[in-house]
């Protein structure tokens, strides 16, 4: 798998969201779907689409399975946790820089207010 983060760019938007959601701590799919849904507003990430992304990110070595955070019963016992890898962090950072450059361009074309103005 390519270790140069730039080879993974541009990231599909939901993939980037998932990486961002995992930066703080490992999460299970339910938590990830809630985070992405909250960030994206009314768009819901359906189950099939979510696991396609998780499969894609796992195959690319950007995330990996992690041991559950604690003991629990019911749904908790069946949950699988995911955490971001070192490569995943570098790719997320590279994507953020790429988007930052795009936004600077958008500001220059006055599609967005400049950073100084409120």
């Amino acid at each position, binding site marked *: 798998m390519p270790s140069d983060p730039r*080879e993974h760019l541009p990231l*599909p938007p939901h993939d980037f969201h998932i990486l961002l959601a995992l930066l703080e701590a490992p999460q299970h799919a339910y938590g990830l779907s809630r985070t992405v849904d909250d960030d994206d507003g009314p768009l819901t990430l*359906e189950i099939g689409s979510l*696991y396609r992304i998780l499969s894609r990110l*796992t*195959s*690319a070595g950007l995330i990996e399975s992690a041991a559950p955070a604690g003991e629990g019963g019911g749904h908790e016992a069946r*949950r699988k946790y995911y955490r971001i890898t070192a490569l995943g962090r570098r790719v997320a950072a590279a994507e953020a820089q790429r988007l930052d450059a795009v936004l600077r361009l958008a500001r220059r074309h006055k599609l967005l207010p400049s950073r100084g103005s409120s």
Partner: protein
Amino acid sequence: MKLAEGAFRALLLLYPARFRREFADDMQALFAERLDEATAAGRRFRFLLTTLLDVICSAAAERWLARSRGPRNLPLTSRSHPVSGFGQDLRYALRSLLRQPAYAAFIIGTLAIGIGAVTAVFSVVHGVLLRPLAFAESDRLVAVWGRFDPESGFDFPQFSLSAPEYLDYKAASKAMTDVAAYSNVSATIADAGAEPERVPASAVTANLFPLLRVQPAIGRSFTEE
């Protein structure tokens, strides 16, 4: 609930085995959690429907990926990305179909039958239910029929009005702005020296054209006199 979870587990069989081994249990747990959340009947129905469609599409995409992908662990941008990989997917699809002409014919035939059926149903629905009549304010037009009750010895639930009945409706009805009548007949027309021709025609009352607010294509309409 259990039925839905069982159906979802069966649906997961659509995914490639490798994908199932890795994610099936987790997907089922997430499905159960989201189903628990959707308490209202309407929300649950929407959730089940969107999940069904999403899983079918995702499973088809994963199978496609499993077939088209040789080695795993390619960078994200070179895999079946919604936009960048589309041209590549299209070329691959065409090559696959050309390699298996019988399978391609089956797929194309299935699509043709499906599209044909949908078109036929829509044509009927459009003609019968959606398209308005070609007259102004057609929603205010009604057809008036007579009816023989079975007690009368005849059983005609829909029977043409007689001329006196029409005159009674025209004179007495307060529910309708105007009443016009027509009767389908056949007529024979002939030009001098030419073969006569039988044509479908209608005998109509003078007020039919003003009632429908249409003008004759040639000449003028006629009056009571």
